[in-house]
């Protein structure tokens, strides 16, 4: 199944479209999504360590704007957001 991962902050460097479309199995977790994004970085960005580190340190949010845990199960096609380390103000 396909999900959309909206990109924010430094993760916007991953795509000019501000989102990634990722293929995952039913009932995958956020950890699985991170793994897929890291595979994407390996393929498209020659394993850029900085980008991988950002993904490892990122949180994710659901469609209804809740920060979700690494074990959150994705049971249907949906849009989630990646929240890299923040620094406003």
């Amino acid at each position, binding site marked *: 199944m396909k999900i959309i991962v909206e990109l924010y902050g430094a993760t916007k460097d991953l795509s000019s479209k501000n989102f990634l479309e990722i293929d995952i199995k039913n009932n995958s977790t956020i950890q699985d999504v991170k793994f897929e994004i890291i595979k994407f970085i390996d393929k498209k960005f020659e394993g850029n360590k900085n980008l991988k580190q950002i993904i490892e340190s990122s949180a994710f949010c659901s469609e209804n704007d809740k*920060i979700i845990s690494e074990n959150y199960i994705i049971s249907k096609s949906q849009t989630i*957001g990646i*929240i890299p380390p*923040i620094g*406003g*103000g």
Partner: protein
Amino acid sequence: MLHTKIVDSKRGKIDIVKAEKFLSSSKYGAIIYFIGTVRNLNENKEVTGITYDSKDSLVLKSFEEIYKDSEKKLNIKDKAVFIEHIKGYVSLREKSIIIGVGCKHRDEAYQLSRYIIEEIKKRTPIWKKEHYSDNDSEWLKGVSIQQN
């Protein structure tokens, strides 16, 4: 009483006059404004501007949560809070954030103002990309957001 907004720099600026209007009440004997601006030097690099990125819906939610949590943490019942944050590109000296607080007394106002900016730094999904005089640019390292 709370006012929050994210202002797109392509469409407008954040303006202290709006904060003054919002906080103008004889109930408050102490009003404090915190204004964040773009400064010219960071880690020995000459900064020319900053692009702010924002997850708008979560930003506004975090402002509301910080406002509510301030009641529990600081026990300040009678207050008014004005928060506006910019998104998009801003140049040197331009404002990135205004936090205006109105309280009965100065001690409460100082505490509340400080609490809000520190919590925004920890909880609010906003990101900065600095632009430098050599035309380079860089997303700044931040703080990992925690699940509640």
